[in-house]
């Protein structure tokens, strides 16, 4: 569904999504990296469990929530990828945990 513009200068970065290595590029937001990798559903809603994915890409819609390095419900479009970053998709209500 999504294709990258050619940018030979961008360095490759590897993150993990639900434990699987995913290739991204330096400067990508987590949401962009997910979409470029073909991962369009990053969570299900807390009450109806309907699928959701990155939509506005500018911090407004809150549909791209994922867990990043153990912190749940981060906005994937507002966080840049970093080598070794652990991203987890969310399913229904998250747990409240210390």
């Amino acid at each position: 569904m999504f294709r990258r513009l050619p940018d030979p200068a961008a360095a490759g970065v590897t993150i993990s999504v639900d434990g699987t290595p995913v290739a991204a590029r330096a400067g990508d937001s987590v949401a962009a990296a997910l979409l470029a990798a073909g991962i369009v559903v990053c969570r299900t809603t807390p009450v109806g469990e309907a699928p959701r994915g990155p939509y506005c890409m500018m911090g407004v819609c809150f549909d791209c929530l994922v867990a990043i390095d153990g912190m749940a419900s981060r906005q994937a479009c507002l966080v840049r990828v970093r080598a070794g970053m652990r991203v987890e998709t969310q399913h229904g209500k998250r747990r409240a945990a210390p």
Partner: protein
Amino acid sequence: MAPAREHDVAVIGGGLVGSAIAWGLARLGVRVAVLDEGDVAFRASRGNFALVWVQSKGLGMAPYAAWTKRSSDGWAGFAALLRDETGLDVAFQRPGGLHLCLSEAELATRHGFLMRLHNQPDMVPYAHEMLERRALETLLPEIGPEVVGASFCPLDGHCNSLRLLRALHTGMQRNGTTYLANHIVERIVPEAGGFRLETSGGAVRAGKIVLAAGNGNARLAPMVGLAAPVRPQRGQIIATERVQPFLNHPITTIRQTDEGSILIGDSVEEAGFDDAVGLGVVSTMADRAVRMLPLLGRLNVVRSWAALRVMTQDGFPIYDQSASCPGAFMTTCHSGVTLAANHALVLAPMLRDTALPAELAPFSAKRFDVPAAA
């Protein structure tokens, strides 16, 4: 101008108090009209904390404690009736509620307060206890290190109050009630056989009237020889994202909704007719909540809002009837959720009759008619 309508009873106010009374009356076959404001009304019914609460109510007026307990006892049946009539589940739960204390001084103050409450003459008896930290941990393992104890009352509960308002409106209209939005009452004129209400939406006639307009009662009551000394009192609420159920007991200031949100509330401010959110108050509320339950510090806040309670000088409700304009009644309280069961199933049948019974006499606004100190 819309044609005048004929109704047995006109209820002025379509919030939780007015719609509970209207639903209760309509179930008895009474032809009811509800006159409401519009979307911009100050509406505590859409901003409240949704506790159905007993502990701590009634110091200074034992009949209020009894009235509150009676509504709490009637709530499960009330919720079941609403579900049967409307198909809407208002998510009433009564697991018992907690008031958490963050220091030995707070715990001693709470204990003393409850002793004074329950030592009053004619106080209705009910179960309640003080819990030391260790006993509290079995109910609420997530408490933070500063929590020293709590008071617990098994009668306390909560509900989904937005769905409650919707269910009452659905139910009253199914039972034939006429709901008139954007009918702000400007004048009340007693006339033969009842009252004529001149409103922003035209004139409405009814045999009896019930003032249930919250803070608006202060303006309306003198039109029928009553007094409603009420003032707005601001409360603020913080809502977090939805999380898996973990908080099994509502706390005075923190509860988890049926859909998973954590609500933090119960602030009190005298701010007039101003329902703006203030950062100072919400930050204090958030700080105390995180000290009570540290895991809340990891949740995202999604909303905060403020709403205006309807408060009397002594904090107790007013139920009153006019001596000069028979057939004019008034109800006002700041516990429209807790008292909804009574308003629908106890008060409404009383309002169908000619006069309020003696048991409601302590709630008359005449209690404020005392001479000023010399």
